[in-house]
């Protein structure tokens, strides 16, 4: 069982609001990721980090931003949420760079 935690699990917010999705892992993994997944669809990498103070954009363009100030913490922020941002956001981490372990996900609905 992977020790990676996401909050909130479910969130409904209004258009234009700022939202931060929290992600923490207690495994000491150096690499962390954010994936976006629509229901029944594949996962798309939107951000990743290979250590403190390093962040990179993933394969899928996203208006969200991330930060990595501490090894265990990798929050994702949307400055102004839109309905097109409605999706599930999955945080993950790894130490080897191959097998990655996922959190339970954050379901975001923007109305």
């Amino acid at each position, binding site marked *: 069982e*992977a020790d990676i935690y*996401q909050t909130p699990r479910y969130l409904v917010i209004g258009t234009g609001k700022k939202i931060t999705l929290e992600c923490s892992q207690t495994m000491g993994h150096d*690499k962390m*990721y954010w994936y976006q997944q629509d229901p*029944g*669809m*594949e*996962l*798309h*990498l939107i951000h*990743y980090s*290979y250590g403190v103070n390093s962040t*990179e954009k*993933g*394969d899928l363009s996203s208006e969200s931003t991330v930060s990595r100030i501490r090894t265990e913490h990798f929050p994702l922020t949307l400055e102004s949420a839109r309905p097109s941002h409605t999706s599930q956001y*999955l945080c*993950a981490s*790894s130490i080897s*760079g*191959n*097998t*990655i*372990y*996922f*959190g*339970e*996900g954050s*379901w975001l609905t923007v109305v």
Partner: protein
Amino acid sequence: GESVGLHLPTLSVQEGDNSIINCAYSNSASDYFIWYKQESGKGPQFIIDIRSNMDKRQGQRVTVLLNKTVKHLSLQIAATQPGDSAVYFCAENNPRRGTSYGKLTFGQGTILTVHP
């Protein structure tokens, strides 16, 4: 471009039967493959992995087979149980995309339904 796809989007089996979930990948440079199980409302859970220098790997009730000749991956679940009902994703890692950054490519997923 690169793609990982699943042959069967849905699979229904009876409890106790063996299940086989298939996956095709297009990038012959991929060197590492993972199967994930995702239950409703949860994040993907690691099941089993295999490297390209192997053609078979067994875990507890699960076996992954890799056929590099036809670029095909399969997950076999023995004595399938209702708790195995979930969406199953295969994922591949292409070292050219940065192995150390875990840039996995995921397929669309197969829905496995196990009937009691």
